[in-house]
């Protein structure tokens, strides 16, 4: 466990420059954008020159970009993420309000694609080259090739509009007054389609990795030895081959977390899930620099933490991995 703590400390210190690059980069990106928060606002409500000037002053947009960046970083040092101009609320409040929804969506989708992908990968890898293997591999690839939004739209039409088995959109039934288990069940029902749409896309990754990993393990000495000893095929698959092929998948889990956050933008938009992805899109649209940086910062921290957990898990699973290598 000591090793894990050392790793943690190293990682946290190591991520400071990364976060700094992310912050300055996103700031400059929005700064270079044509139009600022006032333009975005005025485009939706109209107004005259005096009003526009007054808004720019009251939203603090009349200072030079460098002054604002310095002020932002200074506030950030005091753990203040600033004020969202589009929501006129503290950024942290706005982000934290949406974070659980995104975590739920991403977590469930990851679990789905990981569990299902691994299981199907084992099925496919158990007999490499068989018809079952080919079917599963190509089928999962085809799912990966389908644009996520398209899959989502078709699923909603079939299951929500035509069959009416599942709710169409949102996180939960509005103002239903449900609590406890009933509410959890309600949220779960709402999450089925978004989680499926997001999870099915990434299924192929895990399936193919598992299958590829197994193909390699099949050729290894200890597998051959086990086969020579006459151990049953099923047992070899589960005990030896699959288990050894699982490790790289854990690494993939970490790498994939950032990708999935991106993929959730579109899914959240189709299913009206109030999550971070959609919020980020709104923040860009309304040129809300503090909010966008806040979201990117929070998701970057999230990605760093997930990767850290993956590394710790990896280190715990495989003693050969030293804490030094884990950073490479």
């Amino acid at each position, binding site marked *: 466990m000591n090793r894990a703590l050392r790793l943690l400390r190293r990682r946290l210190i190591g991520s400071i420059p990364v976060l700094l690059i992310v912050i300055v980069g996103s700031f400059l990106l*929005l700064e270079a954008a044509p139009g600022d928060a006032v333009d975005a606002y005025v485009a939706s409500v109209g107004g005259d020159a005096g009003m526009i000037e007054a808004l720019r002053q009251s939203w603090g947009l009349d200072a030079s970009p460098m002054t604002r960046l310095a002020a932002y970083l200074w506030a950030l040092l005091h753990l203040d993420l600033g004020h969202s101009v589009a929501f006129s609320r503290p950024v942290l409040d706005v982000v934290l309000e949406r974070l659980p929804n995104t975590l739920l969506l991403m977590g469930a989708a990851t679990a789905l694609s990981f569990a299902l992908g691994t299981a199907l990968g084992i099925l496919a890898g158990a007999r490499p080259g068989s018809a079952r293997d080919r079917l599963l591999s190509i089928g999962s690839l085809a799912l990966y090739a389908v644009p996520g939004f398209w899959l989502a739209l078709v699923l909603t039409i079939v299951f929500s509009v035509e069959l009416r088995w599942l709710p169409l959109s949102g996180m939960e039934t509005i103002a239903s007054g449900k609590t406890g288990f009933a509410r959890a069940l309600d949220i779960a029902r709402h999450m089925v389609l978004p989680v499926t749409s997001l999870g099915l896309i990434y299924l192929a990754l895990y399936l193919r990795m598992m299958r590829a990993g197994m193909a390699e393990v099949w050729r290894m000495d200890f597998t051959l030895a086990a086969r020579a000893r006459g151990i049953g095929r099923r047992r070899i698959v589960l005990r030896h081959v699959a288990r050894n092929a699982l490790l790289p998948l854990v690494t993939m889990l970490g790498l994939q977390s950032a990708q999935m956050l991106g993929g959730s933008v579109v899914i959240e938009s189709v299913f009206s899930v109030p999550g971070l992805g959609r919020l980020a899109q709104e923040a860009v649209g309304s040129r809300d620099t503090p909010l966008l940086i806040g979201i990117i910062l929070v998701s970057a921290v999230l990605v760093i933490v997930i990767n850290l957990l993956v590394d710790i898990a990896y280190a715990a699973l495989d003693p050969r991995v030293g804490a030094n290598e884990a950073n490479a």
Partner: protein
Amino acid sequence: MSLRRLFRSPEAVAGFVILGLLGAMALTAPLLFPGDPLAIAGQPLLRPFQDWALPLGTDRLGRDVLAGLFHGARTSLAVGLAAAAASILVGSVVGTVAGFAGGLVDEVLMRITDAFQTVPGFLLSLALVSVVGPSLSVVVAAIALSAWTGPARIARAEVLSIRERDYVASARVIGMHPIEIAFREVLPNALPPVLALSSVIVAAAILTEAALSFLGLGDPNRVTWGGMIAEGRAVLRSAPFLSVIPGIALVFSVLGVYLAGEGVVESTAAREGQA
């Protein structure tokens, strides 16, 4: 020899056939459908197989779907290839420099790579395109911006292992400039595993372009399949063919790119295994 091995797998064959078709569509588009594919060609929302002049029907403004499909193949392929080329170029240069120079340069370059990998790629593309404005080159740049990190990491790892090899050492002995060594001796040898990533990047680029178009961030002056799907979405229920046709084309292309890429990687791996 290796070609025969390549075509032993039916998946790889299917992949190359799809890619061949795609390439043929892209090349023949300006011959078969001269003029602007966005031009209004007939009565709007004509269903497929009704009029042989417009075999796949027309969209909401009366634009020829078949012409769009052919010209869309051009843009989709162009976006995919350009994005992959750009990200592999940037990635392998960054990776080679980082791996070869080591020290502070390596540290700085790898932190930047970390930073890019920490931010969700699609979010980055989305922000860049909405900020700079959607045109084909911006879309390509945005996709490359989020895809160069993979090639960079692999190139660096390869360079780290290659730089200690004999021929690099001998190049040093004969007094070659380090930059020359890096780009003439090391990079070419580090490239193959990086190139193996290209099919993944091309496929991801095609999908990202479609997702950006879905969010209204496609180039309005060009036909893209993503744009066609996004346009057809409003009439998904009443005229499903408008989004299904380009959708199928998209799925097949991505699948083809993948299968072909995988076939190549597997046949080279098998050759190496044999050697």
